[in-house]
């Protein structure tokens, strides 16, 4: 069983942005994603009722794609929306599947 070192990108932001964010993520070269709802608290206050839900998106991708996604998010979301984003290193099983050909 072979492991590939890839990047895991995590983005937590307002639930109403979910659809457009997911679309953009795929456009930027990700091969997939996993998402779930969550509550949170940050500089824009508590986000825990039905009018202020958060969504968390997690995806495995190459470093290049990770950078593109984070750049997009930081340009389009950070000024006006509740948002946090980070990356970390992970060892992925059959990881070659998650580095799409759109972006090397």
């Amino acid at each position, binding site marked *: 069983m072979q492991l590939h070192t890839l990047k895991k990108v995590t983005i937590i932001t307002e639930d*109403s942005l979910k659809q457009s964010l997911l679309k953009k993520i795929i456009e930027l070269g990700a091969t997939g994603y996993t998402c779930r709802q969550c509550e949170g608290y940050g500089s824009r206050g508590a986000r825990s*009722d039905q*009018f202020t839900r958060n969504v968390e998106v997690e995806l495995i991708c190459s470093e290049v794609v990770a950078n593109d996604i984070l750049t997009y998010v930081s340009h389009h979301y950070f000024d006006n929306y509740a948002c946090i984003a980070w990356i970390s290193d992970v060892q992925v099983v059959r990881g070659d599947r998650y580095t799409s050909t759109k972006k090397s």
Partner: protein
Amino acid sequence: MLKSLAENLLTPLPMCFALGIFSKMIHGGIKIPKELYYSISIYLLMSIGIIGGHELAHEYQAHGVSTIWKPALVTLFLGCLTPITAYGALRYLGRLNIADAAGIAAHYGSTSAVTFIVADGFCNDKGYKPDGYLPTLVTILECPGIAVALVIGAVAMGMQKAAEAAAKSKEGQIDGAPEAEGGNLWEALHEVITGQSLMLMVGLLVIGFISTFAISDAKFHPYEEFFYNKNMIFRGALCIFLLEMGLVTGERLGDLLKVGPFLIAFGIIMPLFHGFLGAFLGYMAGMNLGGCTVLAAIVSSASYIAAPPAVRLTLPEANPTLSMTASLAITFPFNIALGIPIYFWMAQTIGAK
């Protein structure tokens, strides 16, 4: 009128709302699962739709469109007018910035389905059944106000940015191409029109309308019983819903301090003004006393479901705390507790029967 106010306040629905606020104030443990809240709101929207369609069909069978077209036009007119009055008040009296003014105006241009439901129940309980086409008017009112406010916002922002760019270029600064925001506007309007609330209401309205013609009233009866708003399920679900609304409102009471006195005054005076317009024009259009009251209530009410995501998408700079606090923590409770009896009294004074 005072007695009417007290009587309204001491029924289970407003008291459930108050219980929710109280629970939040003392950091109490009442917690309604989100899924229950969503389920009830789906049920309420479907109810408005299917029973509205059913009553519209009866109205149509009895009078054709003769009784309906005037109220429908009046409602459409009010839907386009109220965001303009609201924007004017916010921008020029309140000195809010463009984005915030347009964002809040979008909320007050649209409507709150629960306010409709409570007003409808109030009139029924008083024995003044509103005209059967009222739910149809709610669906007419949902969308145009949001569209008008968002367009106002987009145009005003465009002009402001152009002015700023001109100023900058005089100063010799180089400016990047302004981003096209028009796309977002269309996207936002598409989202309102195909959004949950409008689709459920309009969809079920059509279903209720068609099936009233297609099947006998006896066969329609179980649906009517389930969805009818004077009925046990409806009232019970509404108790729970208003309890949750109270919890959400109570959570936002602290924001009242942040938004300042102007917005608090706006959240009470604007609905009174819009409500008066609704009652008056409704009366002109030939609506009955219950109908004028309910029209006033829905025109005066502010959206907190359809408008917020549309505004968020089109005017991201607008501060959502301002609009949510105004519509949810000021106007909604004001209407539920005091507004509706006042609109009733207005309509009565104007002469509606």
